[in-house]
């Protein structure tokens, strides 16, 4: 069967065994745990209740998050281009993982990281500050008086000031008791050293009055660089500041180097994050277990075929009791799809819609051939198919995916695309005809053409709709089989079997009407089907008077089937789209040759490569979603209930890394 049989498992153990038991279950990875249904469960012990101290992992995880974002400034883990699509995680050996757990001192690294972070930001602040000061001091370098001496004395006010250049000629500056010296001039402004004799009367910044009159401003450079005044002259102060800057930069570099070295351990941090996430996860799971005063009740599901292995692995615990039983009617049994390797990739299609519930049929084997054919028809180009298959095959080989179902699906769909392309004569669009006319390749490719979609779309439309009819018909059969399997023989045969007979009867009858089939048998089949449909319609109606109405009303379903079938016209449209765009790409490249004689042949490969790759990418996406839609909307609606929970055994958390042996 395609849905794996499950056993409902209950484990009884002493509470002392709790931690080792859950860790063991995680390591085995065979059991899907569910919330315990044991009645009269006592509260979890004190340590697990809300009032208990916060568990260690909470603090560790927040520290690890800080360390991680800090390290990521220095170190990034190399990611391949395709990892963006596959979400592949960096590999860590089990040894390194264990080593990290035992030896890595998270609190110490955390403290270091915090200290470094703080120091670095302080250093940065200082550097910016000093650089600004240097900039301010720069023009004053020619000043030949120590900066510390430019200040008020008892009788004289000296200062540095900036005045408009025009003011230098002002009489005020040349009056008695005023001395000035020009230090620099730039952009209409001048920096001056100014001394104003104030006399005994007013020492209070006598220069200010004068500067106000000139429209200048007084500078207090000395206060800005107080710590460096001992150096004396401005140029010496500058040198001292520069020396300090060098010192700071060196310190910064040392820290950065140390950080870069520490950040080598980023992989360890990722591994540790997973380690503590795993602890958190186990803790959450533990809370789902049932408890009595001394015992622990763990419930869940294990695949029936894994049951012996499961018991064997748990045999290290001598004091536990494992009970396994057939799941009950009301249990929400998790679903694991188990299909033949050829069908397996198509589980990816089922999974997009959602899992079937435990008690119904797995739709995967039923949808697989149709999805395969529809995808091939929609894309419908042999070379695209070859490219798709080769790419997927190479991808599976090189990327070592954990779950390669999707890529395998693409590879298989590539085969059907090759087939459809060969039968419709589409190889890179009309490449053989337009570029290789008369060659052997052209003769071979055109000899296997069965149908030309561009010149004969009506036939292809009929083919598409015919596939639709078969698809829907199979859907009804699946429903019938499912109903009969569930023990409702009469319902299965009457409600669904009637349509299984009626629909093909109607189609065949239609064919006989247009003269394709010379026989009366289709009419009899259709009539028999119609009678069955009417009986099934009447059956459901309890009121004897309404029975005939209900019986005839059943035929209204035909409208639904009819509109379902029309939906398959999209197969034709998508096939035409990819085929014609292929032709367009070829046509454009030929036009270019005509337009640019000589060089045209150089441009052709570029146009062809770009155009065909774009066409492949866009139409592969379209083919996938539309083939999928035909399954989900037209096919599944006939029989599928869904709503199953996927089987997810308790396993080690692997969010950031993948463990290797």
């Amino acid at each position, binding site marked *: 069967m395609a849905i794996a049989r499950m056993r409902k498992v209950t484990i009884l153990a002493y509470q002392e065994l709790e931690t080792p038991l859950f860790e063991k279950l995680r390591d085995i990875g065979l059991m899907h745990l569910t919330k315990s249904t044991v009645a009269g469960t006592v509260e979890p012990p004190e340590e697990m209740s809300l009032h208990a101290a916060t568990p260690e992992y909470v603090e560790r995880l927040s520290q690890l998050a800080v360390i991680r974002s800090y390290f990521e400034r220095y170190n990034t883990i190399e990611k391949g281009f395709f990892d963006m699509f596959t979400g592949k995680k960096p590999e860590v050996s089990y040894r390194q993982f264990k080593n990290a757990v035992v030896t890595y001192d998270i609190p110490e690294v955390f403290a270091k990281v915090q200290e470094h972070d703080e120091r670095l930001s302080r250093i940065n602040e200082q550097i910016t500050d000093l650089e600004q000061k240097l900039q301010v001091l720069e023009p004053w370098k020619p000043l030949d008086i120590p900066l510390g001496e430019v200040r008020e004395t008892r009788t004289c006010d000296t200062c540095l000031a900036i005045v408009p250049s025009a003011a230098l000629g002002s009489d005020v500056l040349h009056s008695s008791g005023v001395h000035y010296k020009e230090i620099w001039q730039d952009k209409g402004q001048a920096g001056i050293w100014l001394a104003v004799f104030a006399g005994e009367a007013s020492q209070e910044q006598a220069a200010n009055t004068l500067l106000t009159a000139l429209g200048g401003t007084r500078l207090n450079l000395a206060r800005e660089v107080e710590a460096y005044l001992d150096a004396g002259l401005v140029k010496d102060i500058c040198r001292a500041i520069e020396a300090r800057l060098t010192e700071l930069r060196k310190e910064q570099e040392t820290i950065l180097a140390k950080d870069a070295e520490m950040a080598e351990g980023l992989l360890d941090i990722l591994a540790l994050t997973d380690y503590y996430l795993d602890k958190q996860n186990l803790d959450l799971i533990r809370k789902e277990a049932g408890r009595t005063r001394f015992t622990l009740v763990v419930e869940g599901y294990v695949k029936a075929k894994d049951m012996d292995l499961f018991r064997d692995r748990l045999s290290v615990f001598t004091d536990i009791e494992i009970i396994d039983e057939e799941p009950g009617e009301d249990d929400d049994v998790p679903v694991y799809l188990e299909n033949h390797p050829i069908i397996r990739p198509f589980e990816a299609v089922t999974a997009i819609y959602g899992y079937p519930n435990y008690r119904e049929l797995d739709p995967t084997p039923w949808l697989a051939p149709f999805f395969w054919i529809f995808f091939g028809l929609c894309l419908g180009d042999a070379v695209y198919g070859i490219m798709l298959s080769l790419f997927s095959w190479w991808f599976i080989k090189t990327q070592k995916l954990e779950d390669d179902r999707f890529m395998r699906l693409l590879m298989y769909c590539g085969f059907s695309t090759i087939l459809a392309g060969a039968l419709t004569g589409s190889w890179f669009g009309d490449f053989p005809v337009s570029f290789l006319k008369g060659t052997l390749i052209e003769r071979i490719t055109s000899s296997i053409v069965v149908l030309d979609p561009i010149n004969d779309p009506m036939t292809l439309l009929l083919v598409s709709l015919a596939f639709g009819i078969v698809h829907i018909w199979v859907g009804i059969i699946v429903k019938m089989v499912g109903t009969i399997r569930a023990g409702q023989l009469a319902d299965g045969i009457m409600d669904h079997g009637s349509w299984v007979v009626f629909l093909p009867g109607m189609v065949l009858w239609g064919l006989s009407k247009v003269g394709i089939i010379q026989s009366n048998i289709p009419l009899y089949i259709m009539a028999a089907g119609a009678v069955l449909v009417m009986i099934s319609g009447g059956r459901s109606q309890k009121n004897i008077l309404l029975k005939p109405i209900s019986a005839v009303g059943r035929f209204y379903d035909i409208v639904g089937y009819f509109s379902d079938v029309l939906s398959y016209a*999209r197969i034709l449209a998508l096939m035409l789209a990819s085929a014609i765009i292929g032709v367009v790409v070829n046509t454009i490249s030929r036009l270019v040759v005509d337009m640019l004689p000589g060089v045209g042949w150089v441009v052709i490969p570029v146009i062809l490569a770009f155009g065909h790759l774009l066409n492949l990418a866009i139409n592969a996406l379209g083919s996938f979603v539309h083939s999928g839609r035909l399954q989900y909307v037209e096919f599944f609606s006939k029989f599928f209930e869904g709503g199953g929970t996927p089987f997810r055994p308790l396993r080690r958390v692997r969010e950031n890394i993948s463990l290797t042996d």
Partner: protein
Amino acid sequence: MFKGMVGSWALLGVGLLVVCLVLGGFFGEQLGGNVLALMGAGLAVVLGGIGSIVGVGVAGEKAAGITAEDPDNFGRVLPLQALPGTQGIYGFLVAFLALIKMNAFGGVLSLTLEQGWQVFFACLPAGVSGLISALYQAKVSLAGMDIAAQKPEESGKGMILSAMVETYAVLGLLTSILLIMFAVKI
């Protein structure tokens, strides 16, 4: 923001169509069949194009935001962004078919007024259904990206939901192709 704009973009496209119709209706005689046919081909590209440009554009913005939060989501949101892009290609496809039908690559165009109108109207189903379906498909794609962001493993469902809208662009395309191939008599 975009959700409120959908109507305006659709209106812009339909406005263009009306302008072309009015031009053709009043000045058809002067313009001639060739111009009408070329207007139709152009409309198919432009209408599908507007829908796809706006659709892929807004979807791309949101996709970038989601990728910024978690770069691993890139592969999941990319197809969702690409989905409203097909309509522009369908429009281009129809225009190209119309040009081939008109023998535009083979020499002198000489369509009668009636043939011009035939090509014009044959191009419309793909253009108009492309325009409106791309805009609304983008809305579904945007919502689908929320699925990809919050439940990454379920992002395939967002793609299917988005593809439902495209159905009508596909039908428009199919109709235009059949009309150009079989109904237009040149």
